[in-house]
Each structure stands twice: as structure tokens, then as C-alpha cells.
């Protein structure tokens, strides 16, 4: 389901308040099919709040999201899996709860897609952080959503695990899945995202490609991270 602008997900003027504090101040974003969108910003910018609203975990105080939460896959920052169950049992449980028509087929497909087929009978508690995160993402993909939300997917992973994770995510996007992720790692945004959304203090400061962000700063000798910091300074953050 695409919007009039050809977007598979569109959020308009999202507002979220926690008491007197306004965590999101009319934030909008749009993502096309197969697009990788990175949400970046300093701590407390509202990245996780925005993702949780898109995922339907929190209700916004204002604004709208074009898709219902049931059509969106969501992968929390910390692996939401049961350590005492095996990889296959975790997938099977969530596939049944997702009411997937053929549970075993879906489980086998996800094991194949995540490359965890040889670990299917291992308890998740015995997996490495990277593999656990792959199970975490696989669960988010069980219902074959067109849009997948990832909250800090590479946090707590070593460089090798991160590389394998991004390879996997890249394959998803190449297959047509729109992936929206939040990250603290600005290089990951530059390297993998087609679109970056910069949030600071609940405001959307920028939405465009990494190159456009660098051009906005106007200093050609800066790398992306330096350009991002300079951009925030220019905007008073």
C-alpha cells in the first residue's frame, strides 16, 4: 500500500508529550519501497519515541501514520526473545502468535534468510549477541511486513557482527522491504541509508540523503560525522 506520493510509510506532524515536555514537535517523514532510512540525532532527540509511535507501541498526541501497526514489523533495541527456548521455538512461537498460515514453512524460511539454520535447536541464551539480534530481526520479519522498524540494531555488536547484520539488512532492502532504523552510529547512517532524518530536541531538522546533509553544511573538507556535528551546531544544538 503506497501513499499518493508513492511512499509505503508516511508520518505527518507527529506530536508526543510527556507531561509538560514535548518529546516530538510535529515530526514528519516518508519512506519508499526498499528504501533504507536512518533516524539520527543526539541523545534525547526523540528517535526511539518516533519509532515506537510508528510501531504502534505509543500513541501520538497529534499527527498521523499512514499504516496500521499490524502492517509494520518492529525490532526492539534489546533482543525480545526467550533465552530458554531454541531459535526455532522462538520463531515458531511468534509465527503462531502472528497467525502465519504455515508456521513450519515460515520458520524454515526465516532460518534460511538469517543463516541460522545450523543453530535452529540451540537455546537463544547460548547465541552470540549478533546471532541473537538476527533472531530478533527474524521475528520482526515473520509476518513479511513491507516496512521494518529497527531500533539501534547494531548497538552492542562487535564490528564483524555489525558488518554481517548490515549485509542482512541490505539484502532485505534489496528485496523490497523498507527499513527505517535509528542509530547513534553516524557512519552507519552514511554508509547504508538512502535517506537520513535528523532529530534534535523533538524537532526534525533535516530529511534527505547523506550527501545533501553535507552540502547543507557547506564545508567540503568535513567527513560525514563532522558535517553532522557542524549541522547540529548551526541549528543551535
Amino acid at each position, binding site marked *: 500500500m503506497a501513499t499518493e506520493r508513492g511512499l509505503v510509510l508516511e508520518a505527518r506532524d507527529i506530536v508526543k508529550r510527556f507531561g509538560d515536555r514535548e518529546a516530538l514537535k510535529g515530526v514528519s517523514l516518508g519512506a519508499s519501497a526498499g528504501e533504507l532510512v536512518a533516524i539520527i540525532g543526539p541523545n534525547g532527540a526523540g528517535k526511539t519515541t518516533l519509532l515506537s509511535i510508528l*510501531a*504502534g*507501541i505509543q500513541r501520538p498526541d497529534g499527527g498521523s501514520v499512514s499504516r496500521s*501497526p*499490524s502492517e509494520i514489523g*518492529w525490532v*526492539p533495541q*534489546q*533482543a*525480545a*526473545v*526467550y*533465552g*530458554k*527456548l531454541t531459535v526455532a*521455538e522462538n520463531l515458531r*512461537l*511468534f509465527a*503462531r*502468535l*502472528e497467525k502465519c498460515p504455515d508456521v513450519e514453512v515460515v520458520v524454515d524460511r526465516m532460518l534460511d534468510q538469517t543463516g541460522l539454520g545450523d543453530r535452529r535447536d540451540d*537455546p537463544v541464551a547460548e547465541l552470540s549477541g549478533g546471532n541473537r539480534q538476527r533472531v530478533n530481526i527474524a*521475528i520482526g520479519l515473520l509476518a513479511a511486513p513491507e516496512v521494518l522498524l529497527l531500533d539501534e540494531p547494531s548497538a552492542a555488536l562487535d564490528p564483524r557482527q555489525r558488518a554481517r547484520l548490515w549485509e542482512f539488512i541490505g539484502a532485505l532492502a534489496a528485496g523490497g522491504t523498507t527499513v527505517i532504523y535509528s542509530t547513534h552510529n553516524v557512519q552507519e547512517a552514511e554508509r547504508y541509508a538512502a535517506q537520513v532524518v535528523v532529530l534534535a530536541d523533538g524537532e526534525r531538522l533535516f530529511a534527505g540523503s547523506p550527501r545533501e546533509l553535507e552540502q547543507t553544511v557547506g564545508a567540503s573538507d568535513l567527513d560525514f560525522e563532522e558535517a553532522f556535528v557542524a549541522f547540529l551546531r548551526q541549528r543551535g544544538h
Partner: protein
Amino acid sequence: MRWLLLKDLQILRRSPLLVALLVLYPIVIAVLIGFAISRGPEKPRVAFLNEVPPAASELDLNGQKIDVSKYGQEIFSRIDPVYVNSEKEAVAKVKSGDVLAALIIPADLTQKLEAGTGPATVRVYYNAEDPVKAQFVQDTIKAEVQDANTALTKQFTKIALNYLDLISKGGQISIFGKTFDVLGLAKAQAIVQASQASLPANSPLKSQLGQVANFARLARDNLDLSNGVLAAVGTPIRADQKIINGGTTPLDAFAVAIAVTVSLMFVTLLLASGILALEREENAFLRLVRGLVSRTGLLAEKVGLAAICAIAVSLLMLAGITLFVSLEWGRFPLWLVALVLGGLGFGAMGVAIGGVTREVRAASLLAFMISLPMAFLALVPSGAVSSGLYNVIKVISALFPFKPTLDALNSALNKSGSIGMPLLHLAILTLAFGVIARLSLQRFA
């Protein structure tokens, strides 16, 4: 919801140590509490010295023989006698703590009883280092001396009645080995009346003899009434016991109800609070409630799982208990109803604890900390504290599922009181704790 239930059972199956602790600990605690309540204190060890020579142990009250040693033996049913050879040894044993008390029967006991000039005295020494045990020994010996007094009074009354009968009807009496004839009032009346009849009509002695005959008749008539009066002296006050509150549950059967309730409480509270908190610790809560299962459904699943496990443990426990205590299996449906409602009540309270604490360790700790005071408060009997404090305790107990579960199980197991009110109470508590748990989930993740 059944998939979640199966998942939780699978997790429990893979946590054998946790399950063993969860099952064994409540059972051990429950059995210990049951023992503590059902078993009275052991017989106290009491040093015993009988200084009365064997030949003098029989009391001779004008020919009526009473074996005093027979009454002395009765006390041994309640104490564990430690025979000593002297009063000094008895006192030394009390001082050393070897015995809790010493009971000395002096040599002149039977002489004093025979003389009837005053009460005979036994000497008792106590060790009061442990006030509870000392009180128990005092009460035991007092009760036994009272029983012996009552038994002897009956014998004395019987002898007194024989004397009165002798005075009334006449007969023979032995005193110091010599037998004497006693005329008796009846014969005296007859003699006087015969003498009166033999006198001339105008004899002044005739009316005087008439007065004596009248006195003899009146005295005889009134002596007949004395039988009842003397019988009443033996036991002037008797207790006619009627139970106002509570049932007629024997202590052992009540202990069974307590043991099962304690077990049900521990298993359900710890399991329900723990498995709910585990959903948060595994970070799965938000994933689950994001359209896969409703928050209320999740709570219901946790309550149901905890209740099912606790009921299974409780039934196993009851089956084990029937090896030692007789239980009416014909009332099984009522047991089950009480266990189900009790399990749901504790389960709802457990998820409320899990929802508020949000961490498995904190949930388990809080569940444990609440459990014991909740149980002990419900077991405080009326009269143990002031009425105001007792009312406060009653109100607090009513806020938790232990008391109504105990009442329901006691009714189901022992036919004690109505089962309807406790079940209704449990249904209300289940609802109330369910609401608290549901509200706590607003901030759960």
C-alpha cells in the same frame, strides 16, 4: 493464548532447579507450619518423688479403702516422669534444667487425708527460665492435682453418704477394729412411737415423745435430700461447652487446610509474579502486546498458568496427606472449587506484584515478603489481641486471598462453616487484584 501457556510451561520445564524450589519450598514450609500447629508441646519432663511408703498408700476412711497411688498414676499421662530418690536430687535436676519441674508427694499425705483436719499438700518446684514451658508445666500439674482432688472428693462424698445412710437407717460401723451398732433415725422413730403408744392417754410424756418422733421423721426425710447436695459439692460447677464461632474442626484437619493454603499461596504468588516480570526482563512484553496478545489476555494466561501449577501441587500434597490424616475424598469437587478460586485469587495478586515490581528478583522477593505476614495475620485468633487490634487485623486479612482461601478450604475439607462467602470474597479479590495488575501494565515497559 494457549501458545503463550505452552511457551511458559516449556520455560518451566527447562528450569528444573527453579521448579524444584518452587514446589519443594512451599511444601516444606506448609508441612512445617502444619506440624507446628497440629502438634502440642511434648510431655514435660518432671522429676517425681513419692515419699509415701507402699504400705501407707492406701487410705482407710472408716473401713472404706482408697488407693491414693492410683490417683498419682493419672498424672503420668500428661508428664514424662523422671524418678528420683530424694527431694534434693529433684531440686538439683530442676536447677540444672534437666527437668522442667519436680513433684514431691510427702510421706504424710495419706495420714493427713485420713485425719481430715486440713488439706494434704504436695510440693512442686518449677524451672521458669522458659516462661512458656513453665506456664505449660504449671497448668498441667494444676490440672492434674485438680483432677485428683475431684476424684478423691467423689470418694469422700461416697463415704459421707454412707455415714448419712447409717444415721438414717441404722447399721454397723467399725472404728479402730471394733464394730458398733448404730440405731438409726428410722428405728429410733419406731421405738419412740411404740413407747408413746404404750403411755396412758393423759400422760404429759406422750406429747414430748411425739415431738421426738416428729424430729426423727423430719431428720430422716431431709437426710434423703442431702444425697443430691453432697453430689453437687463434688463438682459444684460443670462446663456445658457450645461452639459459637468456627466449626468443630480437629486441630490436625485444620492444620491440613493451613498447609494446603500456604502451599497454594507460595506456588501461585511466586510463579505468577515471576513469569509476568520475566516477559519484561526478556524484553518480549512490548512485542507481545503490539497486537499479538492483549494485555488482559496476557495477565489471564499468567494467572491461569500459576493457578493450574499450584492446584496440581496442592492436590498432590492432599494425596500425600491422606496417608497420614483421614480426608473425605467424597468432597473432592468442593476441594477443587476452593483450590481454583484460591489459585485465581493468589494468581491475580501475583501478577499485580509482578506488574508493580517489573523485575523477576524484585517480584519474587516482594511476593515472599508479603506471603508470610499475610498468612500469620490470617491465623491470629480472636482474643489473642485487643478487640480493636483484632478488627484491624481482620480488615487487613480481608484484603488478601489467604484468609478466604483458608476458610474455603477448611469448609471444603472439614465441613467447617459455609463455603459460599469465602468463594465470593475470593472472586472479588481476584477482580480487584486483576484491575491493579492491569493498571500496573500501563507503565510496565
